[in-house]
């Protein structure tokens, strides 16, 4: 007998329910409000009362309303058909909902129950399998979607039956497994998993080391992310967080992109809805939307579901990782998620931590980030979930609780600078303030010295040094005046400006410049570093600025040209001529 209860108290979307049987923490229940069912989650239990947060508006709800408990936590439904979908935070298919407005209790199935999938068995009768083992596959868009032994299955199983290749629906039984006690278990193409629990059906989770290409120079070159890595992007409003996330979602070298639009503007999601079905994915030649899944809980959608939305997104990511794929999960913004936690903690009258956030906020954030990672699956394949979240610090102050907690959890830090944004230096990532811990990993250094160039990491450290020295020179010039410092200071400053304008800045709206492959990045970085090593002779500080502006202009034209095209080479030649004008000593070429 399922537990039931009745509503005895209502404070905004926190509802108190008197229950008649056992309930568990985080159990899902439904309030039977008139003809609609309102979904809710148990967040505290006290004597015979359960405190539940309702994922909908509770307007009009009365005491005495019956409540049914489901016996399980919030679950994601996992199976073929998730790609290209637009879900709400609870994984309901937004496209299946009726009407222009979201109606309370309009809960739609996330997948297509009637669709036929061409199933191909991978396992044979008699095979020993366990949770996460691949039984077969179907083709979903362009991904070989593996049908796995449900993650909830504990222990060893033997394949008793498996269907022949052919068309099946997601709820059809495709295999029968036998456990150690000879009980039979039917397996279909879908399975359910509680979103707040990490999926751990892999062999191990080594330190990530494989470089993940994003095409964004300041990230790939200066603050690289890796397959299975974690990063976060804090920045005041107007510094281009969302443009950066959109660029990542378009360009990153991943098999699947999951975008969790968490408490942000609806029009930004609409931009993805409008553009992604049109844009080509250069990796597959298909449309970008075919490798993308969107979880949209925009700022005007119910707050409680906002918290769930990031977990739903992570669970889907882990599911696809178990198929041996590399997944990039983007969440914009995790601050809104933290605020949702704060609202609920407040209503439950918990003692507040800093800025009224719950005391366990840092633990919640680091637990979530730890679900990302590169894994070795039990069958020897590898998969990864790379997670990059944005943070919207209140007042642009990076000393606020969400930013600080995230800083402890994430390994890459992309600081968006208001100054850079104001002077239209986009992407506004401050390459000096930002860091990537992966640059220190011997595994990473080893990987990129083989995959990119043996000097790669040294070059990056050189370039970063030049930026720091340029910044110091600039401060001196500002304090002492243009003619109050030696001419060399101007040269040092302008050499760092070359790196800024040519490598760091990138035009997200230009067809060619928007995405730079790593071989091209390496080529340009070498070029710019050589300019930096070149000594020039200037008579007067007034010569320095126009000269370097010329250099920058030609290098930018190279950025705008097709790599190694006629045009590119023409500008490269022009650059040589300009350099020869003033260069005194050529340093040794490598």
């Amino acid at each position, binding site marked *: 007998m399922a537990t039931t209860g009745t509503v005895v108290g209502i404070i905004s979307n926190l509802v108190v329910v008197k229950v008649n049987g056992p309930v568990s923490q985080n159990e899902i229940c439904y309030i039977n409000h008139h003809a609609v069912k309102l979904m809710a989650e148990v967040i505290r239990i006290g004597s015979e009362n359960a405190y539940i947060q309702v994922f909908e508006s509770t*307007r*009009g709800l*009365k005491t005495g309303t019956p409540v049914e408990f489901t016996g399980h936590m919030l679950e994601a439904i996992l199976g073929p058909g998730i790609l290209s979908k637009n879900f709400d935070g609870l994984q309901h298919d937004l496209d299946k909902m009726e009407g222009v407005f*979201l109606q309370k209790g309009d809960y739609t199935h996330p997948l297509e129950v009637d669709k036929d999938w061409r199933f191909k068995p991978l396992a044979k009768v008699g095979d020993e399998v366990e949770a996460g083992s691949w039984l077969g596959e179907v083709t979903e868009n362009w991904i070989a979607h593996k049908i796995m032994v449900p993650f909830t299955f504990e222990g060893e199983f033997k394949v008793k039956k498996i269907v022949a290749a052919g068309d099946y629906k997601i709820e059809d039984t495709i295999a029968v497994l036998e456990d150690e006690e000879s009980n039979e278990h039917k397996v279909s193409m879908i399975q359910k998993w509680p979103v707040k629990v990490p999926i751990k059906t892999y062999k191990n989770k080594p330190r990530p080391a494989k470089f993940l290409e994003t095409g964004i120079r300041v990230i790939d070159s200066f603050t690289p992310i890796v397959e299975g890595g974690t990063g976060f992007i804090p920045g005041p409003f107007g510094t281009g967080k969302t443009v950066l996330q959109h660029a990542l979602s378009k360009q990153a070298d991943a098999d699947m992109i999951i975008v969790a639009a968490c408490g942000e503007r*609806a*029009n930004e999601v609409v931009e993805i809805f409008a553009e992604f079905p049109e844009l080509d994915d250069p990796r597959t030649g298909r449309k970008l939307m075919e490798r993308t899944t969107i979880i949209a809980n925009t700022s005007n959608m119910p707050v409680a579901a906002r918290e769930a939305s990031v977990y739903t997104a992570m669970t889907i990511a882990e599911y696809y990782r178990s198929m041996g794929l590399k997944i990039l999960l983007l969440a914009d913004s995790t601050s809104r998620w933290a605020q949702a936690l704060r*609202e609920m903690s407040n209503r439950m009258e918990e003692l507040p931590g800093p800025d009224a956030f719950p005391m366990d906020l840092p633990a919640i954030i680091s637990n979530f980030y730890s679900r990302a990672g590169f894994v070795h699956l039990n069958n020897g394949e590898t998969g990864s979930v790379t997670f990059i979240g944005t943070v919207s610090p209140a007042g642009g102050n990076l000393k606020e609780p969400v930013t600080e907690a995230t800083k402890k959890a994430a390994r890459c830090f992309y600081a968006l600078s208001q100054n850079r944004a104001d002077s239209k230096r986009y992407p506004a990532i401050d390459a000096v303030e930002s860091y990537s811990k992966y640059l220190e990993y011997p595994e990473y250094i080893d990987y990129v010295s083989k995959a990119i160039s043996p000097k790669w990491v040294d070059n990056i450290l050189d370039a970063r040094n030049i930026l720091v020295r340029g910044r110091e020179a600039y401060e001196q010039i500002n304090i002492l005046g243009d003619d109050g410092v030696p001419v060399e200071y101007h040269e040092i400053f302008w050499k760092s400006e070359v790196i800024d304008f040519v490598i760091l800045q990138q035009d997200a709206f230009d067809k060619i410049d928007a995405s730079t492959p790593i071989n091209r990045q390496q080529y340009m970085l070498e070029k710019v570093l050589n300019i930096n090593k070149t000594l020039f002779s200037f008579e007067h500080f007034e010569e320095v600025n126009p000269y370097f502006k010329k250099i920058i202009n030609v290098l930018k034209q190279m950025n705008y040209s097709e790599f190694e095209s006629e045009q590119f080479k023409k500008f490269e030649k022009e650059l040589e001529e300009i350099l020869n004008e003033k260069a005194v000593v050529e340093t040794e070429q490598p």
Partner: protein
Amino acid sequence: METTAFQKIHTKVDQITKATCSLYATGVGNEEMALVNDRLAQVVKIEGDLVTLQIFSGTEGIPTNAEVVFLGHAPQLAVSDELAGRFFNAYGQPIDGGPEVDGKLVEIGGPSVNPVRRKQPSELIATGIAGIDLNNTLVTGQKIPFFADPDQPYNQVMAMVALRAKADKIILGGMGITNDDYLFFKNLFENAGAIDRIISFVNTTENPPVERLLVPDMALSAAEYFAVEKNQNVLVLLTDMTLYADALSIVSNRMDQIPSKDSMPGSLYSDLAKLYEKAVQFPDGGSITIIAVTTLSGGDITHAIPDNTGYITEGQLFLRKETDIGKVIIDPFRSLSRLKQLVIGKKTREDHPQVMNAAIRLYADAANAKTKIENGFDLTDYDKRAMSFAKDYATELLAIDINIEIDTMIDTAWKLFDKYFSHAETGIKAELVEKYGKQIK
């Protein structure tokens, strides 16, 4: 909202605080409206049979034997075409001496639009003000506030924008505005001959502050009626959202909630987003555009109210007094319309984006030149030209008293480029200079 026959009247109030009263009652819905001795109130909390009501106009003089009648519905508004040309209070009751509006009753603060049903905004709103149309172009379905200090003429500018925009309906939500400002809007709308396009919901400083929490939802519910049912383009003006947020903090304080940054409730972001996100382009052609005012304290945009607003809205418009010309301008540096790239160069002339950027960059060069003077450095010839340009640019384009077509704005910019700079100094693409720059000599 009168009482009707057979409604149960409660006469025993159990607890009274500054803003709320509690009584034992059954069958009451959350957020339901009630009358407490004829004062409007709303259910904010239910604990068993103990129902807590927030009385909008305060609890002064409420006795323990007050008559409490539950109305059985959330706050609602009668919507029909009769709304046009009328003035209402925060409860949607007429304050212009006219009759009650006959229409369909809708609950205010209704559901959100399904994001997959939204259309990408793409229609430009022309205001005649170059600081907006040229530099920070507005688009239907956008939400954007003026960030202004209290001494700046934001209400005047907003009213001007509203009257010039070719909106089918203009809905004013006035929160905590002074009676003088209310009369300013009223006279302006009446004299402009636009009164039949305009609907106003007004809470002045003479009314209780908590009442103003209803104003934006009233205005937006009326907007949804015209945008959804009549496929009209509706412009909603909300002034002043800072006073709205202040009212939120009063309520949360009285409800014993723990305040977060700047004494604001922890839910400020969600509360504001719920309103601003009502801005939408509907698939059937109707739209809701929101222009709001957020007054700042000493220009501080890191305060919780402008800060949260900035994360929600699609840009912001800053007013600034330009001392060189003695006029108020739209600050081209700090203002931003995030949706402008959806229309500029697409719905406007192709040279619009480049001309806009070049002019702002040259204006920035002039600002740098000014700093040079302040620091006692010499000016180059370029600096001097940039400064002359800046003065003309501010007078002929940035000032808020400009009212010209967008093409004229672009041509004016070209004229100023030709007057002070070589084409190379403007940095505009050669083919655009060829096509548009040479016409003006």
